């Protein structure tokens, strides 16, 4: 176990150059994920087109792992149907908190780079934070009859 497992280049890249960071002017669903232990925060908003995540943006403040994970997550689900996003979130949770298998990531190499986080139990929560927010958004969107109101 070394620090290199955690701070891989691709993770630092997403941290320094976050994708989809910002706000949506008219989101269909938005939520705030928060880790009270460390103060990490992820604000997540989506704009839907039917059942496809047309736009997705994140904000908030947090450590490199939570922010890189948010960046990778938004990049991975943007333009994809909710069912795919939901499955990917399940796959990512399996990687972090379950078997540790990368099978559920559909060959997404960026996300696979986060598997080193599993060796640092206190950081697993950081990596999961944006994904938990995503699942909450999906749940709310589905509960709202897929009309997707805030």
């Amino acid at each position, binding site marked *: 176990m070394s620090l290199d497992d955690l701070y891989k280049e691709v993770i630092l890249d997403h*941290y320094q150059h976050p994708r989809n960071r910002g706000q949506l002017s008219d989101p269909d669903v938005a939520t705030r994920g928060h880790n009270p232990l460390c103060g990490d925060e992820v604000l997540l908003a989506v704009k839907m087109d039917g059942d496809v995540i047309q736009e997705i943006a994140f904000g908030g403040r947090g450590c490199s792992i939570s922010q890189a994970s948010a960046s990778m997550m938004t990049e991975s689900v943007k333009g994809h149907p909710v069912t795919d996003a939901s499955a990917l979130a399940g796959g990512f949770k399996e990687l972090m908190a379950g078997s540790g298998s990368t099978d559920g990531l559909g060959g997404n190499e960026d996300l696979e780079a986060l598997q080193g986080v599993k060796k640092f139990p206190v950081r697993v929560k*950081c990596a999961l934070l944006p994904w938990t927010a995503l699942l909450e958004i999906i749940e709310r969107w589905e509960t709202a009859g897929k009309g997707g109101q805030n």
Partner: protein
Amino acid sequence: MAHNPGDAAGRNGTGRDPLDVAEIRRDFPILSRMVHDKPLVYLDNAATSQKPRQVIQALVDYYEQTNANIHRGLHTLAEEATEAYEGARAKAAAFIGAAGPDEIVFTRNTTESLNLVAYTWAADNIGAGDEIVITTMEHHSNIVPWQWVAERQGAVLKYVEFGEDGTIDLADVERAVTSKTKLVSMTHMSNVFGTINPVKAVAKIAHDRGALMLVDGAQSVPHMPVDVKDLDCDLLAFSSHKMLGPTGVGVLWGRREILQKMRPFLGGGEMIEIVGREETTYNVLPWKYEAGTPNIADVIAFGAALDYLTALGMDRVRAHEIELTTYALDKIGAIPDVTIYGPKDASKRGGVVAFTVDEVHPHDLGQIVDYDGVAIRAGQHCCQVLSSSLGVPATARASFYVYNTPEEVDALVKAVEGARAIFAAEVSSVVAR
């Protein structure tokens, strides 16, 4: 059970000569362990301190030689255990200048001590429209119990805001404390800023308006001389585990006349005098507040910790930390892109240095320096109100104690530089992936 304070403690005497830190370090077995193949540099003392072998040995001795329930048995072990337990109480009383051991109530920790006051004194003395005054730099344990009191009893919880340098302005206290104020509760030393608050002056303001003064001494009692007569406060809470003693032991000190009038907290064995079918009369102080079998072993070992600190001399502990904090403020402050929070003058603060580094989140910092063997805290330090008032979601915090050295501050600085290097290296965004 007699425990001689360490050679380190004894040899130094009580003069003004500085602590012999090298000698002190030999009393702490944990300081010789390695973390990630590096010598441990333990700088998380505001969270909990390490324990000298004298304290560890007191626990072993108790369980190997003395273990018995106290205040009941007529046999030798019970007598010895009772004597050692009550001996620790007398040491705690002497340590903070209490009027007597009967003013010392053992709890689990500072949090329980504060809650005890909230559930007993506050329940009977704070009514609708009354005010409780605290500050925005309080630990959650000195906020949440008062939010509950306010909610249950219709009282008003008022905050005195800290200033830019993490200090409290007495003029703000003057304004906040009114004739409706029944309680002022304030930390003596901030666990984030390190600020030493003017609790003596605040106690005077509180008393002038007819309010009680409760002091959270979790950070101050372990690190500086604290005398309750001098502070002229009414109640003081602190914990054993932050002052070389075991976890699971806290102290609530209260003025005798206040503790006598307060109703008991937990009901059960030991706290009673006569139990009838319908009602019960209570034991005298301090046992009225100690229902059930207490944490006997850890209280006795806490006594060994108090012996150790007393032999070192709290004035010399304080002098050592002022020196180390001055050095740390200087060295950490010299790292590029670093912001240090709290007073800049070490004589106005304890050995707690909270800081942030641009571009390196405290979480990442804490993780990276751990790989250099350096243990610091990162996050909100149980002070979310402080965090949001400051507008800084998280900080890194180094905190010192009697065994820390300038070389360890250097090790921290070097480790922080290493963390900066990881994040300073610009990773070119790979477009084609």
